[in-house]
């Protein structure tokens, strides 16, 4: 992506004007939204597109010959078309629409599992996975009599790559790893992970739910086999997700669900399945979200992910520095390569209590185990307070957070 002169300096004030919700108040205080790891806010470009869809386009896709259906289908397929270069995928039909990251991972676990995983085979995940990249593989392993192997992490929250490599062998049938940890912010060395897996013939699925909005992802350069992410964490609508899969894997996998759209011909004797991507897209999709995701991607493309990342990293460094100054505050997750997530604990205070007080001060953070209970057990903590930073956050908001954490400390300790 070309860095334009206009964006030489990231104009956050201008960006904030695109997000109407940021002007509202919470508990009488201006909203400070730092729960972007859970979901991001939507720019007016996306909101307007949603209104436009229901006022101008609403119709089912891939079915009707009538005009509106054609318009809706075209708009829906534009998203696939725009996603191809966004991911640098070789083919549009390697992009499958799902409900979200969770469904993308479940699709691979079930369909790839049926075709390729047998008793005694091994699946590798890591200790920092979100439950949605643990449980589908556990279910698969139970069904197939396969073995789940978990790559440990160090105290900084970085993967133990030597152990990972020692786990790889000819029984390894899948490596499913998160690109960026939702709870710690760790950016994993995915290229190295993929190369090592390929050396033993194992494919790799990357959970990119926390990466896609921060890091330019090139599936060909990574040579990744499957990549899963959600629209709603990248400034797009809820209810649409993406699974990128290499053609040769997708073709070798049985369909996910049966229904309309995924078929070529149905008789009661036998059904032949449709081609990619429709083979994996049974039933009416979330048309509105699918169409409007285009506008979120365009938004990211216009700002430029490298510019966004540079800005967010600057805020991350500032937040980390300011928070560390608070006595008794401990950052959980101190990997050298980090995305814009700061997880922390106040010694002697339960994260829930801190979260309640921050909420009273208008600050939205996530508290708890972040759907990573095994990871919290690894650190022997009940959870953390997590501030996850997005492109519209500011230094002033970080200052507000820091002041609020100090106030919480004064009240609780």
């Amino acid at each position, binding site marked *: 992506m070309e860095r334009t002169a206009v964006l030489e300096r990231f104009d956050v004030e201008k960006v904030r004007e695109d997000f109407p919700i940021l002007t509202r108040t919470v508990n009488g205080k201006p909203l400070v939204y730092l729960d972007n790891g859970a979901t991001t806010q939507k720019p007016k470009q996306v909101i307007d597109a949603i209104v436009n869809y229901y006022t101008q386009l609403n119709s089912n896709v891939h079915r009707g010959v009538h005009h509106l259906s054609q318009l809706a289908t075209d708009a829906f397929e534009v998203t696939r078309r725009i996603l191809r270069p966004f991911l640098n995928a070789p083919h549009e039909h390697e992009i499958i629409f799902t409900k979200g990251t969770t469904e993308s991972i479940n699709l691979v676990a079930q369909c790839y599992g049926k075709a390729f995983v047998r008793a005694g085979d091994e699946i590798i995940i890591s200790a920092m996975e979100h439950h949605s990249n643990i449980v589908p593989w556990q279910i698969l392993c139970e069904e197939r009599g396969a073995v789940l192997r978990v790559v440990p992490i160090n105290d900084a929250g970085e993967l133990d790559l030597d152990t990972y490599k020692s786990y790889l062998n000819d029984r390894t049938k899948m490596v499913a790893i998160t690109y960026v940890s939702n709870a710690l912010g760790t950016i994993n060395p995915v290229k190295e992970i993929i190369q090592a897996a390929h050396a033993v013939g194992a494919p790799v699925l990357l959970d990119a739910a926390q990466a896609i909005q921060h890091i330019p992802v090139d599936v060909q350069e990574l040579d990744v086999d499957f990549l899963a992410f959600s629209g709603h964490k990248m400034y797009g609508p809820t209810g649409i997700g993406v699974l990128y899969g290499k053609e040769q894997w997708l073709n070798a996998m049985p369909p996910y669900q049966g229904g309309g759209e995924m078929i070529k011909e149905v008789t009661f004797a036998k059904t032949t399945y449709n081609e990619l991507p429709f083979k994996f897209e049974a039933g009416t999709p979330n048309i509105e979200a699918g169409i409007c995701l285009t506008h979120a991607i365009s938004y990211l493309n216009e700002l430029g992910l490298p510019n966004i990342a540079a800005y967010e990293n600057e805020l991350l460094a500032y937040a980390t520095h300011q928070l560390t100054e608070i006595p008794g505050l401990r950052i959980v997750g101190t990997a050298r390569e980090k995305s814009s997530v700061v997880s922390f604990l106040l010694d002697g205070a*339960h994260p*829930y*209590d801190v979260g309640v*007080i921050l909420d*009273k001060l208008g600050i939205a953070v996530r508290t708890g*185990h972040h759907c990573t209970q095994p990871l919290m057990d690894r650190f022997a903590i*009940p959870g953390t307070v997590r501030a996850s930073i997005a492109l519209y956050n500011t230094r002033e908001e970080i200052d507000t957070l820091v002041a609020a954490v100090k106030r919480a400390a004064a009240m609780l300790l």
Partner: protein
Amino acid sequence: MTINEIQDELIEDFAFFEDWMAKYEYLIQLGKELPLIDEQYKKEEYLIKGCQSKVWLHADHRDGKVIFTADSDAIITKGLVGLMIKVLSGHTPREIASSDLYFIDQIGLKEHLSPTRANGLLSMVKQMKLYALALQANES
């Protein structure tokens, strides 16, 4: 005092707090001061698991009355647990089972009983009423 008299008293007490800070400071203080449960009951079988904070609840049936003790690992939750105990403990199973806990709403802490808070408090209230219902069924 009846359950409703205790609730009304709490509502009156809370009316003196000028802002949320004072209210929460009171809750935190309450949480810190109350040694709510005997250590022997702080184990798995008495645990009500919220997604975020944990609550332990123990019930004793003495002279026709239910005595609740409870605890939480989060201090604000513990303060709220303390309020619930103040209101419900020491009453008959019938009174507890049929009680309407309106005070939480009136003192402006309703959000803590929302399922999204996942602090175990809502489950605790349900559990308290279930104990009472079970005892009531045994009595009759």
